[in-house]
């Protein structure tokens, strides 16, 4: 027998083997494997990217929190990294819902600050009045009645004005960095911008001298509208900068400032009689 004949004899191969060799190749399985591999790579890349991004965001938040603690001389003792961020968010938004926040504030009080608070409010600092301690001790707000001088290193923008019980009030945005001839403030200068370093100021006109005097000022806040209660007390709206949010999720990569809208109520003498956080306002940049 020669090769040619043996080639013919290959015709004796079992039909099962012939069918088997003619079976279509399972391309899908290979294709599926390739797709799975590609998908796995994508998932890995996405995870790495997301992980890196999440790490960067977390680090930025932590750094912000540390700076906040340092700026206000708050103690980080016995706080974990997560606690520090949570307390930062809690205090910065003035929510005071985190149980650590009150302890941090109380533990950060110096004896002098505690004494001053006690003298002013006739009560010892305690967990029940943490919000007051924060506002009047750490934020240096001035709840004092009466008037204080104007700092001429600020530019003043009148946001709203109102006359109540014969007194004229103006709500003013004081923006640090530009000098301004304060007595020139008038209602036409009303502007609603948010830029620079703001201080919300409430001013009243002295009926005798016709000069404007500061009743109340809130560093880091933006002045809002004026209104009055049914009992003719003055209501002053202030937007306190609560949180800056960077949103890469939007197509324009915007920054948002989430502000708490706080209403301060004053009596005739200019004394603060009530404070209430009413809602939140979001400014987009």
């Amino acid at each position: 027998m020669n090769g040619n004949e043996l080639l013919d004899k290959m015709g004796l191969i079992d039909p099962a083997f012939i069918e088997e060799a003619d079976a279509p190749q399972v391309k899908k399985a290979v294709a599926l494997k390739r797709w799975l591999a590609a998908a796995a790579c994508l998932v890995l890349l996405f995870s790495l990217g997301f992980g890196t991004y999440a790490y960067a965001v977390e680090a930025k938040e932590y750094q912000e929190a540390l700076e906040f603690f340092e700026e206000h001389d708050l103690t980080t003792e016995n706080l974990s990294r997560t606690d520090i961020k949570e307390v930062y968010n809690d205090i910065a938004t003035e929510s005071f819902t985190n149980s650590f926040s009150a302890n941090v504030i109380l533990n950060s009080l110096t004896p002098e600050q505690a004494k001053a608070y006690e003298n002013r409010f006739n009560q010892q600092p305690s967990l029940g009045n943490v919000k007051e301690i924060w506002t009047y001790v750490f934020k240096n707000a001035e709840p004092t009645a009466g008037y204080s001088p104007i700092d001429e290193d600020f530019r003043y923008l009148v946001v709203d004005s109102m006359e109540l019980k014969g007194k004229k009030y103006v709500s003013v945005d004081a923006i640090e960095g530009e000098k301004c001839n304060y007595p020139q403030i008038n209602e036409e200068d009303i502007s609603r911008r948010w830029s620079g370093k703001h201080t919300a100021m409430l001013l009243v006109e002295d009926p005798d001298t016709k000069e404007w005097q500061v009743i109340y000022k809130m560093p880091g806040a933006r002045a809002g509208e004026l209104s009055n209660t049914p009992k003719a007390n003055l209501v002053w709206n202030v937007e306190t900068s609560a949180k800056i949010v960077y949103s890469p999720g939007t197509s324009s990569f915007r920054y948002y400032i989430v502000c708490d809208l706080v209403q301060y109520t004053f009596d005739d003498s200019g004394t603060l009689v009530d404070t209430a956080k009413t809602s939140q306002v979001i400014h987009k940049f």
Partner: protein
Amino acid sequence: MDDSQIVSLYLSRDETAIGQTAEKYGKRLYTLAYGIVADEQTAEECENDTYMQAWNSIPPHEPREYLYPFLARITRHIALNHCRDRERLKRSAHICELSAEMEQCIPDPKTSGCPVEDMVLGEAINGFLGTLDTQKRNIFVRRYWYMDSVADIARRYRLSESKVKTTLFRCRNKLREYLEKEGCTL
């Protein structure tokens, strides 16, 4: 229509059997024939001759469980004969190449027993194929039964041509050893 029903048509001498066969297996048979004769018209002739021979072979055969291999074997045989009869240079070269490869599988007569019948040889070849793993067996069958080129086999199984050649070389040697061991003289 399933194979058993088609075979029943043949058995009852119903001419629609050929139409059903062509509808179900015509394309595969044509492809098989074209792979051997490399000519469209001749391949069509082979396909049609296959139907004719199947008509004449069923009965007595009754390939209900293996209708396609049965038809494909007929097609292969007819296509090989066409190649040889018409002496097409290119395909003859292909057949010569395959024949030369097959020569390597033939055991030395001095070390083997008496010549074997087709049935014994068929059993030996199938026994040998049973010892191979699936891919090697498929490569061997594609090459020496379907007469595919090495390039086509490589493409079919996503292998390099050198890998296919090496596999075939080893399979041929193993077949020769197997036939020697079985005492087959060709």
